[in-house]
Structures are given as C-alpha cells and as structure tokens.
C-alpha cells in the first residue's frame, strides 16, 4: 500500500513538475509580469506629477484606488480563511485546495497592501504612520480607522505568510530529497532541516491547528476593519452597522470566486484534475452558492433599510444607484453577483469547473463594482449638497487597476513555478486516511477495487 501511495505521490509531484521547464507557466509569468510593469509605470507617473493624475477630485476623494484596495483585501479572504475553516472543521476535500488558496491570500494581500500607500497624496511620507520614535515626538493616531487597518493588515499578512509557510516545510523537505544539485540546496534551505520525525509531525499539526483557530477571527477582523473605514464616518450610506459582516461575506464571496478561477486554471493548465477534482469544485461550489445567498441577503437588507427610512441624504445616494447615474453599474452588479450565480450554482451541472469559473469571473467584476458603488455615489452626494461630485476614473487609475491584476497573477505564476501549488504531504495524508478508514473493506474487496481502479498497480520492491 505504501508503494501505491508512493506511486500516487510520484505522479502528483510529477504533475507539479517543479524541475521541468514549463512554457505555459513561463509565458504566463512573462505576460503578467509585463502587465505588472504597467502598475509601476503608472505609479511612477503619479509620484512624479502628483496624485492629481488620478481622476479623484473634490468631493470624490476616494475612487478606484480604495475600491481596488478593498477588492484585493476581499480576495485575500479566499485562502487563509477558507482553508482555516475547512481545516478546523476537518473537511477532507480541503487537502488539495489549501495551498493554492493560501497563496491567493498572500499575494492578494501583498498587492492590496500597496494601495493604501499608492493612494496617499504623499506616499513617501508613509513612515509617518509607523509607531516609531521620531524627532517629531509624535505617534500615529490609533483612533483613526486607517491605523486599525494598518494593524489588522500587518497582522493578517504576517499570519497568512506563516500559515502558508508552516505546512510548506515538509513539502520542501520532500522536494529537497527528490532533487539534486542547486535545487536540492535551495529546497533544503527552505526545508529548515525537516526530518519527518513523529514529534515534528505532531508539533507541526498542532501548530497548524492553533494557527487556523487564530487566523479565522483575524481574517474576520481584517475585513470588518476595512468596512469600518467607511462605517465610522458620517457619509450617507457609509455609516451602517451591518457593514462589518456585509464586507466579510462579500470578501469571502469574491475570495471563493478568485479561488475557483485559480483552481480551474490549475486544473486545466497543469493537468491536476485528479486532485482538484469535480468533487472539490462541487463542495466549494456549494459554499459559493451559500455565499451568494448571504451576499444577496446583506445587499437587500442594506438597501431596504435605507429605502424604507428614506433619510434625505441617504436616499439621494440610494436613488443615484437605483435609477440615477450609477444605475447601469448597479444593476450589472446585481445580475452578475446574484441573478446569474443563483441560476447556476444550485445545480450540480453548475458546480462543474467551467460554469463555476465563468460565474466566478462575473462575481469578481460584480464585487469590484460593489465596492466602487459603495464608495463613489456616496462621496458624489455629500450631506451638504452644494459641491456635488462627478467622478470618472483617469487612465492612470485604470492602468493601476489592470496592473495590479497583472502583479497578482505574476506572483501567482511565479509561486506555482517554484513551489508545490498542491500540498503534497497533506494530500498523501488524505490518501492514508482513506485507506485506513476503508481498510478492512478494501482488503476484502481488493480484487474489485483493483479492477475498478485504472491506476497502475504499485511497483513494489
């Protein structure tokens, strides 16, 4: 049986093929890397000429940058949070998903974390926000939600990195022991001298469990705090008590969408269908469907309360979304975020890789629009409605938006090229669990199982 397991592991490692030149990944990384350069080009122009190259104005002081910031922070909830929930609940089908999900978190956070700096008028003064002793004798103001953001995102990015890194250690050891030359040395460096002793396994699993427990409330707090950037204000339709959970649900929703797309691409591009199987898509699709309903519920509740209460300033914003200048984006958002998913995801055929990936693309667009529609119409219609706004994103802002997608994808391609995007040891552990659970039965029905399993029999020595 070990030989059988070993064979399967060999096959998985072969599919991940970290030691081979893979044109798909290289071209992908190259192209997305070029797109990522657009991000830095646009940012460079902005640093040179001033923040005015963005389309933001008075009173729409926040626009595409903050929208995209919230978008990426939302995406980051794909990985760590989902993988932690699945780990804590002991969902077996999580095993092939966790690594590629956690990587999404780390890179979405890295990209998203650039945006608060990028949107600052004086990005070079970002260190003013660090609590470091300084000649000004002045510390940051922790009463500002932006400082909560800084604290939460720092904790989350560190947590996500560590949560991704800990389970990576045994895989690095596996790769170390399977490779030669410089690769062996590099992998060896990251494996930290992992030996796979029983004590190490026990400690590691204990650590991962603890981490999962810690990271769930942390992730919830991150997006809650992001929502509080808005909800702490007096801006019409921002000051809302349900923004915390609303944003968390939206974040998980968009996160799953990004994960679905990543999984579909990995499945097709790297022939990982055996691992990122239909069952995984189906289960994740069910979660996706649940989040659609939750998101729809929150969106409905948010708009219903404003409509019913009909407070002047808020109603202006509401109608600007419903029938005013933002009606187009608003109803687009409703369709791609709710109508289409709810017509597709409840059905088994709809939870196959292709339909879910297509639905997910729509949801990503819709969730970006949702954040945009939360930010812009409210700012365009301030309470004292004399200086009304009129916001159109500038080309620089769009370049930054597109560039950020490129940057994220580039990170992801580079990661996939160099690190097992599926956790080898966890998947193997899963196979062992299957075997031991069905141990006796499988032994009794061994011939049949063999007959039905098209896998080649273990080579055995």
């Amino acid at each position, binding site marked *: 049986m070990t030989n059988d397991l070993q064979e399967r592991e060999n096959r998985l490692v072969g599919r991940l093929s970290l030691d081979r030149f893979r044109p798909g990944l290289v071209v992908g990384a190259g192209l997305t890397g070029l797109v990522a350069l657009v991000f830095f080009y646009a940012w460079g122009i902005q640093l040179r000429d001033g923040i005015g190259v963005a389309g933001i104005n008075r009173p729409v002081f926040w626009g595409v940058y903050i929208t995209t910031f919230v978008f990426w922070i939302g995406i980051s909830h794909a990985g760590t949070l989902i993988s932690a929930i699945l780990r804590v609940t002991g969902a077996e089908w999580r095993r092939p998903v966790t690594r590629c999900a956690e990587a999404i978190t780390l890179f979405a956070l890295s990209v998203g974390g650039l945006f608060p700096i990028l949107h600052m008028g004086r990005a070079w003064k970002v260190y003013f926000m660090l609590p470091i002793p300084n000649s000004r004798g002045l510390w940051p103001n922790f009463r500002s939600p932006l400082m909560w953001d800084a604290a939460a995102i720092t904790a989350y990015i560190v947590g996500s990195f560590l949560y991704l890194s800990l389970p990576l250690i045994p895989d690095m050891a596996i790769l170390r022991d399977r490779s030669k030359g410089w690769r062996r040395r590099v992998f060896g460096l990251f494996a930290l001298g992992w030996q796979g002793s029983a004590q190490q396994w026990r400690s590691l699993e204990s650590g991962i469990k603890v981490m999962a427990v810690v990271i769930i409330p942390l992730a919830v707090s991150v997006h809650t705090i992001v929502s509080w950037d808005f909800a702490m204000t007096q801006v019409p339709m921002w000051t809302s008590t349900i923004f915390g959970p609303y944003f968390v649900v939206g974040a998980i929703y968009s996160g799953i969408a990004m994960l679905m797309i990543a999984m579909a691409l990995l499945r097709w591009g790297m022939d990982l269908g055996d691992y990122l199987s239909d069952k995984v898509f189906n289960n994740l699709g069910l979660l996706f469907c649940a989040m659609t309903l939750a998101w729809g519920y929150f969106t409905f509740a948010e708009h219903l309360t404003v409509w019913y209460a009909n407070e002047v300033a808020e*109603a*202006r914003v509401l*109608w*600007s979304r*419903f*029938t*005013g*200048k933002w*009606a*187009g984006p608003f109803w687009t958002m409703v369709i791609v975020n709710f109508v289409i998913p709810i017509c597709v995801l409840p059905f088994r055929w709809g939870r196959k890789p292709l339909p879910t990936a297509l639905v997910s693309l729509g949801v990503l667009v819709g969730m970006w629009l949702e954040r945009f529609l939360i930010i812009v119409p409210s700012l*365009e*219609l301030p309470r004292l*409605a*004399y*200086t*009304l*706004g*009129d916001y159109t994103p500038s080309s620089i802002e769009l370049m930054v938006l597109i560039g950020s997608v490129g940057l994220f994808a580039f990170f992801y391609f580079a990661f996939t090229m160099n690190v097992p995007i599926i956790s080898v040891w966890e998947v193997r552990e899963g196979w062992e669990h299957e075997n031991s659970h069905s141990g006796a039965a499988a032994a009794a029905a061994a011939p049949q199982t063999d007959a039905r399993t098209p896998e080649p029999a273990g080579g055995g020595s």
Partner: protein
Amino acid sequence: MKRRTFLKTSALAAGASLLQSCAEDEQYLVQPLERQPGRPGVSRWLNSVCGQCQAGCGTRIRIVDGDARKIEGQPDHPINHGGLCALGQAGLQDHYNPDRVRTPLTRSGSRGSAGPLEELAWHDGLAQAARAIAAASPESLYVVSGGRSAYVDALLARLTQALGAAPPAIGQVPGAETERAALARILGPGRALPAYDIAAADYVLSIGPAFLDRGHQPVQGTWAMAQVRSATAGRRGKLVQAEARMSQTAAFADEWLPIRPGTEGVLARAIAGALAEGGLLREGSQAALYSQLFPAAAPSIEEAAATCDVPAPTIARLAAELGRADRPLVLAGGSAALTRNGEFSTLAALAINLLLAGFDREGGVSVSEPAAGYDFRDLGEIEAGARSGGTYVVVEADPVHTRPEGRGWREALSAAESVIVLGSFIDETALYADVLLPLHSDIERFGAVEASGIARPTVSLARSAVAPLYDTRHPGEIVLALGAALDQRDALPWDSFDAAAQAAFDARYDDGTGGAWSQALDGGAFQAERAEAVLPEKLAAFDGPEPPASTADGELTLVLFESAKYGDGRGANKPWLQELPDTMTTFMWSSWAEISVADSQTQGIRTGDLVEIRSAQGKITVPAAVRPGARPGTVAVPLGGGYTDYGRYAAERGENPLALVGAETVAGTTAAALVGTGVSLRRVGPGDPAIYGRGLRDAEQIPTGWASMAKGGDH
C-alpha cells in the same frame, strides 16, 4: 545677539539698495520716514486707492519685506467703510500680473497683432508719442480715457484744450451717459450723475440698476444695504429690484420683479400714477413738477401689468409701500438705461422721487457733480462722428474690447495715423498701439480718485505704497511729460502729478488754509458737504422717444451685463477672479449665456451645453447656464469674455458678447444700447465648462425617488 546684528545689517542693506533704485524718481526721495522699507519680516499697512474701477475705494496694503501681500478696505473710509469687492481684492494680481508690460514698447509690425513689439527707452517712447500728437491736426486728435482718475483726466483735458482738440472721451459705467441725461432733464443742463443715499433709506425700489453687482459704487452699495437691513430705523428696510435679469442684486433683494426688458419706464409711470391717484403723496411731493415732466396720463396699472409682465396687484402694492415708507428711494438707470428707450425708463424711474419728496433729503437723491476743472465727452460722441485717419491717445481704456463690435473701433484704429496707448497690459486696444507706454499699478502710483455716484463729493488720496516693479510711470506724469514735450508748459505747469492733483483739489475744496489736502493725503480721503440738488420752478415736458423695446418674433432679447468678477473685462486677467465661481451660475474660467428653463426646454439645452447666439451683427458660441431665475425670452451674457489678448489668464476664454451688438444707441443719446439686441439661439452640442460643484448643474439631476425612474438614468 549676533543674529540680531545680522538682521539689522541686512535690513540696512536692503533699505540702501531700495533707496538707490528709487533715486531716479524724486517722488521717493521726499517720502516720509515711515514709508521707507520696514524691518525684515515685519508687516506694515500703507494706504492706497483702488483703481480696479472708477469707484475710488480707499485701500490699505500690507507690506512685508518690500512686497505687497494683501489689500483691504480702509476702515472708516467714507466710500467703502472697510470693505472691498472681489475685483478690488484682486488688485494685487494686477500689480504682480506676470503679463504686465514692463518697459515702453513700439510696434514694428502691422497693427492688430501681438507682435513684433520692440522695447524702447522712456525718452524715445515719449518723444515718439509727442511727435505723433504734434503731427496730428487738432480735429483728428482723439483722446480716450478709461476714467479711473478724474485728476488724470483733468490733465488730459488741459492738454487737449491747449492743443485745440476736442475734450477727452471718458469711458464710463454702462448707462451713466443716459443717467446724466435723465438727471439733466430734471435739474437742468449739467453733467452731474444722480447719487443715492441708500444707507439712510428704509425702502429702496431699484428700477434697473444692479448696484450691488457693479455700477457706480458697488462696495458702498453693499455697505449701504447692510445698513438698510440692520434696521437702523428700528425695522429692517426693504429692497425691491425691478430688472429683466436676475442679477446678484435681484437675488439679494427682498422682492424681484422680472420685468420685460425695455418696459421699466412704463412700470415707473404706472407706479407714479398709482401714487398720485392713491392719495399716497406726502408733504413736499413735487407732483406739479412731475406732471410738467410727464403731462400725459400715466398708464393704468393693468396696462402696465400687461406691458411689463408684472402683476397688477404687485404694482399697486409697490406704490402703496413706497407711499407709506418713511424714507423711500427709487434708483434709476443701470440696465434700464441700456435699452433703446433707456432715457425714458431712467427718467421715469428717477422722477418718482419727485413724488416721494426724495430730492435732497436724507435717504434720497442728490447729485454727484463731476470734478471741476475739466471738460469731457462721452465715448459715443467719437464713435458717432465720422472718423478717418486720426491720432488716438488711449489712456487705461480698451475700447476695442469694451465697445460693441458695431462701433467700429478695430477699423478706426487700423486706419489711424497713429495710436498711442498708456496701459499696463497688451489688451485688444494695445494690439493697435504704435507706442505703448506702461503704467504704474494702483498701489505703485500716487492715487487720486474723485468718486462719482456718491452723494457727498469724495476724493480718495494716497501716496504710492510700494516701489515700482518695472520701468513704468504714473499716467499723470506721462501726460505732464507729453505736455512738456509739446511745449504746453503753460497749460500743464506742474512738475509732478501730485502737485497737479493738489492744485486741482485745492481749487475746488481748499478753505484757504491748505490743510484739507495734507489731511486727506494722510487720512486716505476727503469728503465735502453734500452738493445740493436744486429743483427748478418748472420742468419741460419729456420729448424723448418712447420706442417699445420689442424684438422680432422668434427672437430672444440679448441682455449684456457687467458681472461682479469681470466688470467690463478688467478682471479677466486675474486668476483669482477667473477661478471665482460666478455666484449665480458657479461658472469659472469662462463666459456663459443665461437661459430660462422654458427656452432651454424648447431647444433641449442643458447647463454646460454649447449654444450659438446669432444676431444681425455677428455670432458667439458659449456654454449655456439654464437658470430658474432667467426670464423666458431673454439671453443674458456677461461682458469681459473672449479676449483675443490680455495676458495668459484672459486670452481665449469665453466669447465677447459685444460682437453681437451693432451701432444701436440709446435713443436720444450716443450711449451704446447693450440690452435689447434681437438674437437667435441654437444648441451646438455638449460643452465642458468649468462649473463649481459641477454635479449641481440642474437640480433635477439629484434622483429622489421612483419618479426619477420614469425620467430615466440621468447623467
């Protein structure tokens, strides 16, 4: 200690260098000690006189390290009482304007284009100007002044008189010529302007003048209205504005009567009739004089209501309110004086004051005599005369831009023998100059302004507040230098402008002690007692024409006005004023056309759309401002847009609506009729003007409920 020593030393050094640079100009050598450069970083306030319009407000300039930093109104100044308008506040951008002419220039290319201009030494510039004037025959010497200082104009008048030429033509506030003419019909021949004691009135009916927007005394008018509203008489006074366009004055007023343009006189006659018939005449009413002036029966209230488009009950109520008020006052002229029948309208409104016993009383009408000692004529008189060739001397005026296209200034200046311009900027008139002699800014010059349109004769005086930035001169000094060059020492015997101004001042106001001048110079202003308006025993009947102001069917009536920020256009080269949102429309950096909601709907015009306005004379294309307060059937466009050249901030912004106006005059005068031109309106397409709070173009853009769903998504 060392630092202090250093500061002292550098102060001395700075002072020395400044004194040195002033040494050529003896005016600065006789400055009192306090005027010398202050200590570094320490601010001082020095008096000056605002020259941004003819009003003559007293200003004080904050000076730090030799540079002017701020202009404010002189507290307790008899004209502006410490306040100052936007145009006056922006005076520093006149002084520090990057496009100021810095040396005398002469033309080597053809007239009407910006170049090529060559720098010239003052000596040569003055000589060239003097040669040109000497070469001109007296009949064809035309002197035009912007009328910023009566004391400069007096010197010009002396020069023209000595040369045997016609007196200088003085540019004036639009409507002023007609107001003078109307007043002369009551008080007898003269060139006085009616002046109003608004501050002491408790009920003000303004038929025409947007006296808070601009006009003769905008800052004093604003101050006065504050007095009216702060209930000096125990209760809050009232302002009623009868004006075709909703000006800022109309917006400020307690009641606005959006009267059909050109019918102001009919309204005034009907009110007068109602006063007489309603038994509302008070003690001292000059009903007899009034009926001599207008022997015909006044139109009935109903007739007037139909003509003027003002409800009959409103007219009756106004008459009753005027009759019952303690100190009622009717203001005349302004926009009402700019229509073809402006003289009738102005006179009819002014004459109501006869019935209110309003002449020569507190809160009433008095006269503002022009400064004694010089003769002048209206600009229209030059335009009306046959002109060929001729030599033009233009002082601080831009007739090419500020006079209607139909008045032919471009052609006249192109064909002139010679054009000499005294100005600070290359404006549209300066483009035709053979010699351009640059002037001191307001705060650089010795300021002497005799205010007009104010009940008590007032002279604002101030020494120069700062050293000149460039190689410029005082216009009065230039006139004196030209006089000397032309061998007219007898007519202009003074060595300096302040001496000349003092002589003119003393001739009129000195009580023999000579103290009034120096007191005024130190205090900022001199104010004489109110000139009496002596009513004659008998008045001649008004025989002027009363043409109804009507436009052809389907045509709209063009209403031109001076906006608070551009004035006649002088404000257009100041970035502060260009970026100032017009209060009524919030337009910035552009001119605009005010169009009524009704007219906009028939043409599908939205605020910001470009519209073409076409008249028999020409056409302009400007962005539309759809305004609930605009009168249907009118199109109002501010003056001061569309400069072809007037520095970087003014050039090519908006369009000059005077291109639409032909040679029409106010009947019976030579004044230009700026209201009443028939125009057609056409939407050209969407525009992109700068509008403050730009989302607020139309109120209905704010969606408020299901109803907006029916209208469709509005962008």
